Each structure stands twice: as structure tokens, then as C-alpha cells.
């Protein structure tokens, strides 16, 4: 069997599985977004009612905007925190590199709920952080705003997705040849310029890729805001969750879901174009 056809045969079951369990469901979801609910039954007459409702509702628009706002914010924070870590891993860690990378990923494997639970413990009024601050004498009474607030949500979101940003950036740093930095110094560039003119542009693809990953995952995370955000914890995704649960309106939920998907796809497209352009520029000599 020639390699070409072997490849196709191998890909077939995977494509079938993904088609059946990913593409097909999303397609049906799309179809559903045009249906409407009639008490407890779903009427299959297509209409744009749901989308109109979303566009007109200030609440939904606000929720969607907030989701993407959080996504951008956490992407930015993880980029700033993760950038030096990725540099260190690629350029300074030496033999400890693989171990550190593995260690970085371990918290990921503990599961969503566990991580949220841990932050509940840490941030509560009786929690470790408050207690430590009181014990240190930094504050007199426990800070109430630590838990059940946007702060808690975003701390936990940063915690959840930092490893992904670090991995994306680390890959970019691995392909950053030290000789380029030496050449820049040789030609007269001081440290700050070496960063601005060489390191930053050449790690840009990694930043964009990591940023996209974090962005998507933050937008899709409804558990963290719901369990840590208190009153501010209502998200567009949790709205979808309710519409498929107690608030029973599958078509509306589908429409909101697809609205989110559509915006996400636009973001990916933009990101992909950005990456292509910066990689074309940064491709090795």
C-alpha cells in the first residue's frame, strides 16, 4: 500500500469519529438555533426569532461582551506572567527543562472542580490568604472582596490557563536563536532594543497562538465564574447551561451558542492571519 493511501485510510476512522461527534452535533445545534420552543415541546419551524432576540437584548449583548472582555484580559495577564517563564524554560533551564514543563502541567490534571474548590478555600474570609495577612499584621479584618467577586474569578482563570500560554510561548522561544541576540548586541543594540527589535517580533507568533488558546478557554469557562464570581458570576455560557437545563429553551440556547461560535471563529481567522503574517516575517534564514 502506498504511503499516500495508507494515510487516508488511517485518517478515515478519526474523521468519522470527529464528524459524528463534533461536526454533526454542531450542525444540528445550528439547525436548532432556528427552532423555537412552545411550552415543553420544540417546534421545528425555522425562524430568526432567537437571533433577533439576542441582538436586541441588552443583557445578552452585555454578557457576550463581558465574556470576550474577560478573555482578552486573562490572555494579556497570562502573557505578561508567562513570558519570562517561557524565556527561562527555553534559555536558562538546561537539564531541568522537561521536569519544569511537566511540573507546570500537573495542576491541570487535577480537574476543573478541584481547582475552583482550592481557590474557594484560599480566598474565603476564613481562608488562607486572609488569615496570613491578618497574622502578618497587614490588615485588621478579613478582606471580603476576595471571594465571590470578579477578582476571584480572574485569579482562578489566570491560574487555570497560564500553563497553556507558557507552552505556546516556550515553543516560540525554543526557535529563537541566541546568535540573533548576539548579532544585535554586536551591531550596537542595548538590552532594551534587543528585546524590542529582535526577541519580541520573533516570539510574536507564540504570543498570538498562546493568546488565542487562553482566550478561547476563558470564554468557554462557565464553572469558574459561577462558583467563584458570586453575583458577577453569570456568564453567557452559564446562560446557555440554564437554557438547556432548568430554563428549558434549547433553540435559544443553541442560538446563543452559535453566536459565540461565530464570533470565536472570526477571532481565530484574525489570529491565524496575524500568525501567518508574523511567521512569514520571522521564518528562519
Amino acid at each position, binding site marked *: 500500500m502506498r504511503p499516500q493511501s495508507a494515510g487516508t485510510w488511517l485518517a478515515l476512522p478519526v474523521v468519522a469519529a470527529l464528524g459524528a461527534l463534533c461536526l454533526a452535533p454542531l450542525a444540528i445545534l445550528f439547525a436548532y438555533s432556528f427552532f423555537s420552543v412552545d411550552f415543553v415541546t420544540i417546534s421545528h419551524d425555522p425562524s430568526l426569532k432567537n437571533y433577533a432576540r439576542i441582538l436586541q437584548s441588552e443583557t445578552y449583548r452585555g454578557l457576550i461582551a463581558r465574556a470576550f472582555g474577560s478573555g482578552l484580559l486573562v490572555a494579556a495577564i497570562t502573557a505578561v506572567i508567562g513570558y519570562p517563564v517561557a524565556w527561562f524554560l527555553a534559555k536558562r533551564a538546561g537539564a531541568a527543562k522537561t521536569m519544569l514543563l511537566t511540573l507546570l502541567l500537573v495542576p491541570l490534571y487535577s480537574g476543573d472542580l478541584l481547582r475552583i474548590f482550592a481557590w474557594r478555600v484560599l480566598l474565603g474570609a476564613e481562608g488562607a490568604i486572609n488569615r496570613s495577612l491578618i497574622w502578618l499584621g497587614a490588615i485588621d479584618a478579613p478582606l471580603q472582596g476576595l471571594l465571590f467577586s470578579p477578582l476571584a474569578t480572574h485569579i482562578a482563570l489566570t491560574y487555570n490557563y497560564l500553563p497553556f500560554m507558557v507552552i505556546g510561548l516556550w515553543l516560540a522561544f525554543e526557535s529563537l*536563536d541566541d*546568535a*540573533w541576540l*548576539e*548579532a*544585535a*548586541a*554586536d*551591531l*550596537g*543594540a*542595548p538590552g532594551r532594543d534587543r528585546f524590542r*527589535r*529582535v526577541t519580541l*517580533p*520573533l516570539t510574536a507568533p507564540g504570543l498570538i497562538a498562546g493568546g488565542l488558546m487562553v482566550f478561547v478557554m476563558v470564554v468557554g469557562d462557565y464553572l469558574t465564574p459561577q462558583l467563584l464570581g458570586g453575583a458577577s458570576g453569570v456568564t453567557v455560557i452559564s446562560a446557555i447551561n440554564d437554557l438547556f437545563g432548568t430554563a428549558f429553551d434549547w433553540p435559544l440556547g443553541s442560538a446563543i451558542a452559535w453566536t459565540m461560535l461565530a464570533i470565536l471563529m472570526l477571532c481565530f481567522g484574525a489570529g491565524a492571519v496575524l500568525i501567518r503574517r*508574523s511567521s512569514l*516575517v*520571522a*521564518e*528562519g*534564514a
Partner: protein
Amino acid sequence: MAVAENTAAGRRTRPLLEAIALYKSYGSVQAVRGIDLALAHESYVTLLGPSGCGKTTLLRMVGGFEAIGSGTLMLDGARLDDLPANLRPINTVFQSYALFPHLTVLENVAFGLSYRSLPKDRIKARAREALATVRMEAMADRRPRQLSGGQQQRVALARAIANEPRLLLLDEPLSALDRRMRKDMQIELKDLQRRLGMTFLHVTHDQEEAFALSDRIVVMRDGRIEQQGAPGDIYARPATAYVADFIGGASCLPGRILGQVGKSYAIETALGRHVVPGVSGLSVGARAVLCLRSEKVALGETGTPAHVTHAVYRGADWLLECVAGGQIFQVTHVGPPPAPGETVRLSFDPDRVWIAREAA
């Protein structure tokens, strides 16, 4: 451009670069062990040696990419070692070229010029001039990955000289090129250096390359300088057996000095006693080596009997390997060679061979 300035400087007698008692270790490994070096203005100097001899470490210390362990580096009489790399008036052509992949050729060449307080249009013009010097103006808007190895090499060169450095460092710049291109580039480099009147410090492991380019060769071994001098001097009068063999190849016979005769010595070796010119400073009774270059040994009617073990055809001549008295000799022979196994007679003119030290 830079020519007038450097010619005036050339009239000064103080060397351009001075390295005094340089040492450098990496952990327990001593890469550079006591180097004293002086580079004259407008000269082409090569650091020659096998890998691991410390030549690259030395170059990188001059460039500022490695901190010196101990010792002093001076450029034009001013201390160099406390200046960071980006403030030294020195530029480097890297072995991997290190062209910035995200910039065009022109932007690469202009990179260092932005630190010389020049107006923008002057920067572009100067960059184009540098590119013209290496005949790469046509490629100004291409990106490095679109260029061949030889083209990238020339752009790297242009990028370095555009800044008119006092000293140009070249770290095995031709090692990635094929033989033909290497020969062409050697001629271009030498020509460029003369035209610009700059001082070049060039690192290589290729002895032929050093000969083609250098005004002066510095032969290095194990972190030390074995010998330095003009190519002709080093070839005709190697200081040690190592230099004799590394430069041009020689069969070195161990022997003992019996006495001194003017500038020559009487030496006793397995091939008998001869009076041969040699390095100065050898005492009677000292051990030394008799260096026989292959072209100085001839097959003839008289001489030491030897038998031929190998014959390698080289186009213009044959390189024969002969064994006499347990010692291997290499002999250059023009014309049809004797067959392996045949017995021949080896002889040499004592005035045309040389006595060197066993070791530095």
C-alpha cells in the same frame, strides 16, 4: 569612506588591539591559558587551530560575548574589557551569519547604523553602499531565507562593515560554503580588507585559508599560542613539531642536539647525523625534532633505504608513504610511482629542512 581615516591611523606604531595575559575557564576546563597578542593596524590576522584550541573563545572575548577570566584587552590604548559588546567599536561576522529573519536584507545591513546618530536617509544610503561593496545591492528587499549560503555570507559581511568598525571579527565565516565558493570568497575577503584598510581578525581551522588571507597567522593549541608570524615564516621555520605538522604537514623525526653550528645544529636521528638549520635557543643534548616536508624528501640512488607502503594520486603528483627504521615518511613524487612493497632510497638536502622543538 573609512580608508583615509585608517591610513592615517596606520602610521601610528601602537598596535590596534592588545591582549595581555588573557585567561578563561569554563568550570574545570581552561579554554584560554595566557594569551599575549597584538594586532597591527590594517592587518589581516588569522587565529588558526583545531577545534577546542580556544580560538573562538578568544575571538568572542574580543567581541564582548564572553567575559574574560583574567587579563587585559585594549583597543587603541583604551581598556576594552569593561565595555559591553554593544558599545565596542568592533563588529562580527558570525559563523551561522545570524541574519535577522524578520528583516529584509537592507534592514539587516542598516540595523547597526541606527545607533550612530545618522539621519534616516543617510542610514539607507550607507546601507546600500555597504551592500554595493559586496555586490548584493540587487537583493536589498529580499529576506535572508530567500538567499543562498554564499549570498547570506556576503550580506552578513556588509552588515558588519557598514558600521565602519575599528576591528572586524570573522568566526569561521566560510566553513559552510563549498570549496569553490570558499576560494572565491577568500579572494574577495582579502581584497575587501585591503580596500577598506580595516583590521580583520579571522578564526579558521583551515590552514590553506589562513595562508591565502593572512598577513600574520597565530597558531593556537590547547588555549595557548604555539607560534605566530607571517605565513612564509611559519611554513619555512615552524617553532614546534605540532606547528610543522599542522601547517603543511611534515614527518617529524625525534632526535638529539649534538652541537650548534652558527644558526644550524648538528642533530642525531634515526636517519643519521646531519647539520640542519633550526629554531634558536636549543641547547646541546636537548631533544628536538627534524621536520621533513614531503616535497623536501626525494627518491634517489643514494640515501636511507625504505619501502613503499602506499601511493596516493594527487593529480599533479603522487604522495608516497614509506617506512624506514620504523618511522613513516611522506614523500612527494612526480612521475610514475614505485609499486607498494618496493624498496627505495630516501634523501634530503639538510639545508632545506628544519629543526623544531618537540613541544612549546
